[in-house]
């Protein structure tokens, strides 16, 4: 098995400056330099610097999702964090995005929210920095590309976008400094932490059975299974588990049955002896 970490949460951040406070907060270490700068820690958190713009965000999602070769099919969580502009929201306002509209493609995405998420806003992803703030929504340059790509490799409930206001009608984009970005991003941590723990809970539910299946498959790795036999076997594992009969399952798997057919038959026969 590759590691004991059975969930991954991937942060997608446009610029290194935006990433700094997150790198410190999650104690992330440099992992790769090229083609993307990626950081990670031992607790399943990874961060990729995507570069600016929706298509860069989208490419970064695809890259990191394929990086580890998630062959067990574990679900992963996704968070896009960054700065955004808004007509009149105060600088430093942090929020979860409840709707993402792409100005270019006209596509609209609706990230799921948790019951606790009170501070939420709509967001428009644009190609160039927005200085007019035409609509009463926040503006960024990545979220639409990020969300579209992440929704192709993950459940929608595992994808979040968190933004912090960096510019508005009274403080233009031109006033943004490195120091300001760092200060603003520090503020996002209070929104990020509960989102991360929510994600961990969801991932624990979604990945629990996959972890179990893979652990049991390890015990019979010397037996050859066809794809359909393997699927039958996994379902039998799940049923033993659901019935609270994992010990019995381990005993059967350890009793040196030599063929896939033998094993499948033995497991189904045992399950028929239902105890309720």
């Amino acid at each position: 098995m590759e590691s004991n970490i059975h969930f991954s949460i991937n942060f997608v951040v446009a610029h290194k400056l935006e990433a700094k406070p997150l790198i410190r907060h999650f104690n992330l270490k440099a992992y790769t330099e090229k083609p993307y700068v990626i950081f990670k820690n031992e607790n399943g958190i990874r961060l990729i610097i995507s570069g600016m713009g929706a298509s860069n965000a989208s490419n970064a999602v695809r890259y990191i999702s394929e990086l580890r070769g998630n062959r067990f099919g574990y679900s992963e969580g996704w968070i896009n964090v960054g700065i955004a502009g808004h007509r009149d929201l105060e600088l430093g306002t942090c929020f979860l995005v409840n709707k993402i509209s792409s100005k270019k493609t006209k596509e609209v995405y609706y990230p799921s929210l948790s019951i606790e998420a009170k501070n939420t806003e709509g967001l428009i992803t644009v190609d160039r920095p927005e200085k007019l703030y035409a609509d009463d929504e926040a503006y960024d340059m990545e979220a639409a590309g990020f969300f579209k790509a992440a929704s192709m490799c993950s459940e929608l409930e595992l994808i979040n976008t968190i933004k912090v206001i960096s510019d508005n009608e009274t403080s233009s984009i031109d006033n943004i400094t490195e120091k300001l970005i760092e200060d603003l991003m520090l503020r996002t941590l209070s929104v990020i932490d509960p989102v991360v723990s929510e994600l961990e809970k969801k991932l624990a539910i979604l990945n629990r059975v996959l972890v179990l299946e893979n652990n049991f498959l390890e015990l019979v790795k010397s037996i050859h299974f066809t794809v359909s036999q393997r699927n039958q076997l996994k379902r039998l594992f799940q049923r033993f588990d659901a019935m609270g009969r994992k010990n019995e399952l381990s005993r059967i798997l350890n009793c040196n049955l030599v063929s896939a057919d033998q094993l499948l038959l033995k497991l189904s026969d045992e399950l028929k002896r239902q105890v309720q």
Partner: protein
Amino acid sequence: MFSAIYIEEEIKDWDRVKEIVEPFSNVPQIICGRYGEVFNRTNQNFRIQKQTPALILAKKYGNLVLQAPSGYGFEGGQSFYFSHMLNCIYDCRYCFLQGMYRSANYVLFVNYDDFKSQIEKSIRSCDGNSIYYSGYDCDSLALEPVSYFCDYFLRVFEENPSGILEIRTKSTQVRALLERPPIPNCIIAMSFSPQKSALLFEHKVPSIQKRIQALEKLQAKGWKIAIRFEPVIFENRLVENYKVLFEQIFDSLDVHQLHSVSLGEFRMPKAYYKSVVKLYPDEELFARETKVEGGMISLKDTGTDSLRNLEDMLQTYVSHEKYYFCG
């Protein structure tokens, strides 16, 4: 109560919509196009979504009143169903809605006037009585404080006495019913499972005792009550467990005043069952031995002819005329 309220652009200024969202000023309100943009997306996970469901306010187009599936409900006229809502605030593990919908969000169709005209048209098109089931794709009463379903639809049926309304529920939200005079062509049908199954599988559902109390109040007020023992989930000591339940219910209610009592086993279309197993691979209920008949999955009987035994026992409490099997 809701993680968000999505509102279709087309209806965002309707009075009913404003009335519904008014108490939820703290909940994010998000304007969407058609409700399907949120409800029918791919890659949603019903199980995860069920933890923090959103409310979607929408307008329903097309056939608002549909023919009831054969074998559904009691005799007494042509049968139809209508769904002003999709999904339910309860979380019964055996519920087919989990397999039918991609989303666990609640959709509330607020164009009640369109439902009204189609129901009335349907009633007029039938000779004699016709029956309308509500609560097929939801629990009609459970969201009453938000939907004002009773408030509106009871008036529709009051004005159309040859239409018989069955409200299928597990809810104790009966205030709206108790606060108004009963109408003879409305039946409140409460579903029950024995304590053991209720505890294992009926998450968030009011206790059996509370549901019985709600029925007692309704019956005392003159409402017609029906009891649905559905779905029967085979278990050891099934008959003994149902005996306890039957006694609890029939000792508390006036059996002679009951409209009907039915029994039906756990059954689910194969495709829905497959989806539900994917969502809950760790659920004991879905680890049991099953059988397939006519595209429907049901559980293998753990005893001998258990349903027959239950039917026999049930008919010692209620007359043959009041009983039907829902299959």
